[in-house]
């Protein structure tokens, strides 16, 4: 089982993404004779082995879950959070801007909860390599184990190191650098050395506050990076609803109904006093609008609350060293 190559059928030892209804996912490793218990019921792993991914499997009680093949995108939705993580909008845009593809060699720091790491490894496989740096020892160890469990360890070199203090220790190696650090500007100089020196490379820093962006831009500029620019990207989830095509005619009919009911109740009250005949039901002469008679219209709009900001993405281009050394360039 691996996050970078699909398989068709579930086998023992696979990490399976259990889908338990809208937006509920859980990563489970398939072990013979084990039973997965969740809010929906108990699901014996033995029922899963040999099944095609995408299948529905049932508990004794008849409730069901779907067995999904793990992907970096699903992992982002079910991973254990050790830090704030990157989601699909930022991950996909950064991957495109940094020109990631099979064969890319890249630095990321820090590894964090390894949401982005999984996505990078998938994209640069089979021939690329990711150099991932994490300054928090426990987080580094947890991520290293995950990469092993998910069949990504040959693609990722994980180093426990404070890159702002000690640098990356790489030279002339990578096409792309991603910095998710409190002070990314401290790592820019070392990042510059790590780029392949004979060709262009791309760097991205990820910072929630605009003041961090300003400091990073200054550092990138000082170290002669070019095409410095900055983006924000977000994804807005859309929902579809059905609403009634209410018109003023409906309003008027309902008013007439209320008015008739009021009058008839008054008449009834009067009659009750006069004739003491409360049993008799009073028919209301005007009926209210029947909801079922009103045609529907389909409308769609963004969910009421949405993510408003994740981080600012600052990008720049590393220029090949020829630019500086070519004698023609010195005027």
């Amino acid at each position, binding site marked *: 089982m691996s996050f970078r190559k699909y398989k*068709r059928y579930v086998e023992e030892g696979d990490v399976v993404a259990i*889908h338990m209804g809208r937006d509920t996912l859980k990563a489970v490793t398939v072990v013979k004779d084990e039973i997965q218990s969740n809010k929906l019921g108990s699901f014996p792993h033995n029922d899963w082995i040999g099944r095609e991914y995408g299948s529905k499997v049932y508990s004794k009680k*008849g409730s069901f879950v779907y067995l999904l093949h793990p992907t970096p995108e699903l992992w982002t939705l079910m991973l254990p959070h050790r830090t704030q993580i990157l989601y699909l909008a930022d991950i996909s845009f950064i991957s495109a801007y940094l020109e990631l593809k099979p064969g890319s060699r890249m630095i990321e720091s820090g590894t964090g909860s390894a949401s982005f790491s999984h*996505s990078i490894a998938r994209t640069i*496989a089979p021939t690329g390599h990711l150099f991932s740096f994490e300054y928090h020892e426990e987080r580094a160890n947890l991520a290293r184990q995950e990469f092993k469990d998910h069949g990504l360890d040959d693609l990722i070199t994980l180093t426990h190191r404070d890159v702002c203090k000690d640098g990356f220790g790489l030279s002339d190696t990578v096409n792309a650098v991603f910095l998710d650090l409190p002070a990314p500007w401290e790592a820019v100089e070392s990042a510059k050395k790590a780029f392949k020196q004979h060709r262009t490379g791309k760097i991205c820093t990820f910072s929630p506050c605009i003041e961090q962006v300003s400091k990073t831009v200054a550092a990138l*500029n000082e170290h002669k990076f070019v095409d410095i620019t900055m983006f924000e990207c*977000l*994804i807005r989830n859309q929902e579809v609803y059905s609403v009634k095509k209410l018109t003023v005619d409906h309003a008027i009919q309902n008013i007439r109904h209320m008015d008739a009911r009021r009058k008839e109740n008054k008449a009834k009250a009067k009659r009750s006093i006069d004739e003491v005949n409360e049993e008799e039901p009073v028919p209301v002469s005007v009926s209210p609008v029947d909801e079922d008679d009103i045609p529907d219209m389909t409308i769609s709009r963004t969910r009421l609350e949405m993510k408003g900001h994740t981080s600012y993405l600052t990008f720049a281009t590393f220029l090949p060293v*020829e630019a500086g050394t070519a004698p023609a360039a010195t005027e």
Partner: protein
Amino acid sequence: SEDFPHIKADQCLFLTLPSGNVKQITLKPDTKIPLGKFGTFKANALIGQPFGLTYQILNNSGDIKPVRNTALEDIESTEANNREIFDSKDAQKLTHEDIEKMKREFPDEADEESIIKKIIESHSSFEKKTEWSKAKYVQRKKKKFSKEFTPMRPTLYSVAEYFFERNPEKIGFLRVDTLAQILNFANVHAEARYLVVDDTQGLLISAVAERMGGYGQIMGIHDGLSSNYDVLRYHNFSKRVLDTISTLPWTMVDKDEPTSDGWVEFTEEEFEALTDREKINYTRRRKTVKRIEAARAILNEGGFDGLIVASQYLPMSILDRLLPFVAGSRPVVIYNINKEVLIDAFLHMRSSNEYVGVQMTESWLRRYQVLPGRTHPEMTTSAGGGYILSAYRTFDTPNPHLEASKS
């Protein structure tokens, strides 16, 4: 193991011009490349050079030299302000004619720097301007007179940006952030097989191909008799990458459709009996039939690792035909600039047991100017990045316990 780190002969190339515009050229060796009012340059001077450097055109022969890229400058604000200045054109005493004359009379002097200096000297109230408006003024003039250009590597990002800026309709208004999201929603990667419906003239299929790097298979289903993936050629893909792409017209998706109704394979004797012209026709026809047969074999193998759609056709009509070819748990990802086009399919998928994780998303992107002291979002922006409908394909497997209790 890089495809090509440096600029190659005969490749497709983007040049960024001082105006910020991008020009697309093909780098034919031993030719001169015209850049309109910026002059011409010798193609050979770029071959073998790295991408990303900025060059200046030195003379009419088309010689070029690399120059420093413009870095950011921190503009100190001064005491001056715009209080007393009406920024009319009269303040500028040098006319366009003067400048052209200057260029003719002093060709050596008439480089960008000197012209701009002259213009500034002749601006009656330049010194009274604030640093901000001075910087703006110089930049405006620079754009007009500099003879610089920067060759850019065509990548998924730069190709998408080029078409979106220039001709968004051609690519179905597919913005680069949305394209990037499609690739992630679809978990596109090497060593997999994808079914792609691309009515964006190849932008989508190119992006999938770049992310697969020549490992795996792409099956493109197209309308018309043959595919129109014009954008592919901008990527300069190697034969290895292009060989992973097969295509079929919509008519060939139906298993019962004959590949070619009038086609009979000749024996060697029959072939030898043909005239030369007939032989050429037969060979050409045979190649086409074999290509289609091979592509149909790939399609009918089924079990694709994803269905990726950016099409003018209603999603339901596409899903009806192509979902059976998709393996379990694989992503189905459908893009459209218009939300309304996706709604029927969204409602269907939400209520069906053949999909889970169904969502419809809108992408949102904002670019900033990051000049020191002058950081702000861009003043105009593209309005919409369109919508993506995405889900995972599942099977409505019956409950074996119920089956057992029935028997």
